[in-house]
């Protein structure tokens, strides 16, 4: 597609439920990134996929968070047993993977845990 697509755009879930967030990157972009942004805060890195390499999971805040990228394209971020502190906007970005290339971000998924 023309841009990075994320779904759903908004998600309200009850504490303790699992959620899945989807990211469809730009075709041909080998690198895919997940960040989250809490209200009024900067972007917090979560996980990074580059081609067929093992993902860099160093930013995942707990083992309740996991992500996969199937076929080098679509990625899913899963949060198990959601907590209120998980409420944030989850942003996905993709890039060509060159070390100095800008990212293209999606519009994000706003997650609210009640």
């Amino acid at each position, binding site marked *: 597609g023309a841009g*990075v697509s994320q779904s759903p755009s908004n998600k309200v879930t009850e504490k303790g439920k699992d959620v899945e967030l989807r990211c469809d990157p730009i075709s041909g972009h080998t*690198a895919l*990134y997940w*960040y989250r942004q809490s209200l009024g*805060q*900067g*972007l917090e*890195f979560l996980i*990074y996929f*580059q081609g067929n390499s093992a993902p*860099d999971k160093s930013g995942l805040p707990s083992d309740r968070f996991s992500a996969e990228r199937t076929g080098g394209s679509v990625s899913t971020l899963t949060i198990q047993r959601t907590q209120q502190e998980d409420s944030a906007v989850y*942003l996905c*970005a993709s*890039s060509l*993977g*060159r*070390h*100095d290339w*800008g*990212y*293209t*971000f*999606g*519009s*994000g998924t706003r997650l609210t845990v009640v």
Partner: protein
Amino acid sequence: SQKIEQNSEALNIQEGKTATLTCNYTNYSPAYLQWYRQDPGRGPVFLLLIRENEKEKRKERLKVTFDTTLKQSLFHITASQPADSATYLCASPRRDAGNMLTFGGGTRLMVKP
């Protein structure tokens, strides 16, 4: 640990003036810096990249400088317009992983007509 910081206070300026936003980094020397614009409810949009061996980069009304001595980048918008109102983020590559970016907290710019 490496840090990248922006002034968290909003910058209010009058239309037509030049807006100048600051990005400071500590404890490392990034090979490049990037600047993004973020509007409410949207993801950041890439604007400019400047490399460590470049003093200045321009794009239309935008100008970015990179001072490796001061460990600082300045982002200028000349002849500012109300439509320039947004949050501006600077970002630098992580020292341990060149493709991944660390973002500053952003500075909100408000241009008044």
